[in-house]
């Protein structure tokens, strides 16, 4: 890879996402990667490392710290431009959609960083998907616990079997246009009230 020499600095407080991105860039052949987690003296760190490309997650308030670099070029040896080519709206918009900001050293040609930006976008999107899936799994697990507790209450109160208790929950949910977990929660709440 002709561009493995590019030095890429990743600013991300989310360790998992930073690792996923680092992996992706390594796979794409980039070797000179720096991950910054310590948010103190970020500007100093960047000036010392002299990266060619800086990637920062958009949840990070430190993004505004980077903005200063374009104003105080006297301090920075290599002035950093916001993006390779400001006319390239498509890929900038895609990066922002994915939740990442990319900053590139002035004078670096667009083709040289295109692959980095594309990898970053796809890894950020993959991470977001992972995060959503994790949330859904957690929700499902919590729902299942709620339904199990409600089933137990119904079995005890009505003296029915597990299947019948579940069927009762399911029918009630359908009839009242609610999710089973919502009905189950109502059963638990009611049982606690009547304790």
């Amino acid at each position: 890879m002709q561009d493995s020499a590019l030095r890429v600095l990743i600013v991300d407080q989310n360790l998992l996402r930073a690792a996923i991105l680092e992996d992706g860039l390594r796979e794409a052949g980039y070797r000179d990667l720096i991950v910054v987690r310590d948010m103190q003296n970020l500007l100093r760190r960047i000036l010392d490392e002299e990266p060619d490309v800086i990637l920062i997650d958009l949840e990070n308030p430190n993004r505004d710290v980077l903005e200063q670099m374009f104003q105080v070029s006297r301090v920075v040896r290599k002035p950093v431009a916001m993006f390779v080519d400001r006319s390239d709206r498509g890929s900038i918009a895609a990066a922002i959609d994915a939740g990442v900001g990319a900053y590139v050293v002035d004078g670096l040609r667009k083709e040289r960083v295109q692959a980095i930006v594309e990898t970053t976008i796809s890894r950020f999107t993959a991470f977001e998907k992972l995060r959503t899936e994790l949330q859904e799994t957690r929700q499902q697990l919590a729902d299942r616990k709620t339904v199990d507790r409600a089933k137990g209450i119904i079995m005890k109160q009505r003296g029915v079997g597990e299947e019948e208790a579940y069927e009762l929950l399911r029918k009630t949910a359908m009839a009242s246009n609610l999710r089973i977990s919502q009905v189950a929660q109502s059963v638990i709440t009611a049982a606690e009230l009547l304790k």
Partner: protein
Amino acid sequence: MSTDSRVELTVGFMPLLDCALLVVAHEVGIARQQGLSLRLVRETSWANIRDRLAVGHFDAAHMLAPMVIAQNLGAGLFDTPLLAPVALGTGGNAITVSRELWKAMRDSGAMIGAEPLVQARALADVIARRNAAGQSALTLAMVFPFSCHNYQLRDWLQSAGIDPDRDVRLVVLPPPLLVDALRSGQVDGFCVGEPWNSLAVDAGFGVIPVVCSDLWPRPPEKVLGMRAQLAEENAETVAALIRCIQAASLWAADAGNHQDLAKLLSQPRYVGAPARLLHSALVGEIRVDAQEPPIRRPEFICFGPDDIVHDERHARFLLDHMRRAGQVPAIPASSSK
């Protein structure tokens, strides 16, 4: 268009006291009366606000007035002209220094509530003493390069002959990190909007030598930014939005609503700071030192109908500061002045 359908607008904001008019418009039912439905989205950086406005995630946003000018001069990420149909209030900034720096300034003549020039001269004296002792330059922070905070800090320093680019280190730090940076000694002072000055004072390790309304009376501060194209194509919506902010401004300027406003803004989804601190700032009772009684500055932050109207002089004034800070090239004298 059906009469009952409201125009939905996604509006980005930063968790600061001066997002007040947007919150009022949404929460007090004003937007609904104007046929609008506002979805307020809290952001973490000014750069995000600017870029998400440009790519269309936001229809409008709470912005630093100089940001809009900078964007139109080509200093943004996108070549997307912005427009600010209405301002969101005036003032609200202050300069806070560490208690250690304040002690040194007091030894050089600074006093609680004294005019900015007295405080600046004291700071100049402290800097001279530090230089003579071979100590490192003081580090002062502000929140964004294109901000009134930056220009107010620079004006204040320059008033006593302090060169903001040589005699001190000026850095950008996001507000949520400022208080910690002051405590840990990473910065010696900062210029920021509320509630961050009051939070530093309340925690006991910050002192406010200058409230910015003493520096620039009723200064421009935040505006409502929109993409120029969207604004031009939806003149009716823009007009409704302006009426909305006008009505919110009447509500917010009414002293009888200040308690409610402070409570509203204190919620975590808006500013997330103690209501008592927000209220003190709203009424202009500024506690500049935790060990002293508050000072009175009724025009510290203003949301009245006069404070949301653009003034061409404001734009010129800001442009002039941008030029003096070396952010834009010198501007030829305009014949229309």
